[in-house]
């Protein structure tokens, strides 16, 4: 390819601009990371930028010693695991059935499901339902209302439709029913889409806090994100006064908050780079239909 000077300038400009945006995306997180490991004095004097100053683990020991924090973590892990399993099973069942061409009534059912994507009755009717079902202050309120995501269901159904009809016909002739066909043929062929949907469900459950805010009053049942909300955002008013009487041994709120933020983000950071391609493929498959 012929390279002229203008091309080189454009190349450089593009590299620099993309680099700047990439920094904009990660610098805040690296900074929080640096704060979480820094000493009180260094934080308060504004010396910390991208690397911890006066390395220490005070704030992390404070977070790990906080039993309510650990309880929230345990609860969240259980929630994520159970929710992902339930959501996957429910989505697989409906996606499989709705992807079968000779399924009488599938268009009606599919239509009923699509309608729910257009009209959202709002926060309060959902809240009243949870209340009537007696699920307020129950972890079930964080699982049951989200069991099937219509959008992810459509993605999975589209993918399942790609399994050739001939496979089903020959399986049927061999005396293999729907259940065996689904378990032995479809699912092994569809592992990537299962990974995609499972990951979306897990990350959503890990990150979401609004339903817990609405439905959970009992502090012992706070999932991690809601706990974090109370700690970091709701407490900002007290920060200024709390800082007046600090001593070197106890970490100041800022470093504890940074440590808590890292604590809730690290699992995502660990999972994300390896699974990036599944997330992207999910996004693209969703776009085809959605």
């Amino acid at each position: 390819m012929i390279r002229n000077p203008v091309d080189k300038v454009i190349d450089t400009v593009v590299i620099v601009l993309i680099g700047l945006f990439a920094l904009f995306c990660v610098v805040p997180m690296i900074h929080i990371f640096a704060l979480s490991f820094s000493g009180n004095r260094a934080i308060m004097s504004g010396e910390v930028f991208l690397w911890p100053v006066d390395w220490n683990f005070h704030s992390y020991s404070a977070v790990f010693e906080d039993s309510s924090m650990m309880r929230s973590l345990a609860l969240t892990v259980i929630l994520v695991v159970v929710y992902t399993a339930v959501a996957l099973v429910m989505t697989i069942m409906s996606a499989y059935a709705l992807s079968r061409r000779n399924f009488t009534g599938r268009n009606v059912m599919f239509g009923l499901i699509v309608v729910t994507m257009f009209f959202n009755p709002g926060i309060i009717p959902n809240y009243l339902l949870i209340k009537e079902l007696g699920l307020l202050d129950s972890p079930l309120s964080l699982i049951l209302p989200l069991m099937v995501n219509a959008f992810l269901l459509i993605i999975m159904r589209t993918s399942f439709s790609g399994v050739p009809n001939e496979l089903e016909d020959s399986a049927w002739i061999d005396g293999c029913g729907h259940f065996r066909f689904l378990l032995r043929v479809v699912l092994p062929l569809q592992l990537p889409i299962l990974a995609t949907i499972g990951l979306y469900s897990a990350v959503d459950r890990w990150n979401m806090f609004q339903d817990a805010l609405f439905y959970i009053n009992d502090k012992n049942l706070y999932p991690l994100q809601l706990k974090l909300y109370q700690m970091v955002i709701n407490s900002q008013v007290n920060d200024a006064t709390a800082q007046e009487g600090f001593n070197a041994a106890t970490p100041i709120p800022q470093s504890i908050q940074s440590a808590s933020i890292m604590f809730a983000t690290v699992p995502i950071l660990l999972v994300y780079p390896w699974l990036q391609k599944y997330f992207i493929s999910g996004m693209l498959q969703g776009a085809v239909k959605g």
Partner: protein
Amino acid sequence: MQTEARRAGASLPVKRRNGMAGLKRQWPLYLLMLLPMTFFIVFKYIPMAGVVVAFKDYNIFQGIWASEWVGWDVFREIFGMPQFYKALRNTLMLNVFALLTFPIPIILAIMLNELRVRWYKRLSQTLLYLPHFISWVIVGGMVIQLLATNTGSVNEFIKSLGGRPIPFLEDTVLWILTYTGAGVWHYAGWGTILYLAALTSINKELYEAAEVDGASRLRRIWHITLPGIKPTIVVLFIIQIGHMANISFEQPYALQNGYVMDVAQVISTYVYTVGIQSAQFALATAVGLFQSVIGLILLLTAELISRKVNQQGIF
């Protein structure tokens, strides 16, 4: 036996497939749909019916159905409330600011497409997509850590240089910019994915031909790249317009604070405050219903426009 039934079914006209053979083959599918359909009825359709609360004098002890009908009274009440208009105005305003950032993912995608160093492209994509997976609570926490007037790192830095701290989170105009910036941080990188996918489908020969004809790189971007992703741009723009009246709960709620409620109270957070915190269920349901109906109308209009412009619908 099953095999025979299947063969018999196959040779019959299509209509007859719904007979005994069809049912025999289909019952597992109905079984599979049983729980998911129950889910949709209970958790999606019952709340839809629950919007009748907006037309009732809802009394917790009587329940939804026994409460008295009041017609449009509740709506008359909300249309007389200044806070309702303020929440509506803020919702539209914050969405307009978000709409102003609409070109950012397009520019990023075009630049990523022009990157020739493979590893650099890969690395930047990974970093650009990352913020999308960070929860709003954490984004809100980071915003406070960075931008708070007293303790935020940015202001510590300004103070150490002898400057005056900037009230990013307390000044209404600065808060709107902070909100919009946090939105860009969270969405812009991830938003490039659809454009990048559209870019890969542009015929490479077009670029080669243009180069032979002596078209400069910028001209190639203008005459080939942009027209190539134009349909994607149009569809995504229409979708965003269709969502003008809707606003998520988590982003504004995690970013708002007491100083800026004048511009930060949006419909979703207002419904939460009025409905769940103050238990004025009928009022809050009516506000939510108003938003849902406007949202539905906008979305269907967007769909119609998309069909006209693009010869294809969004959905």
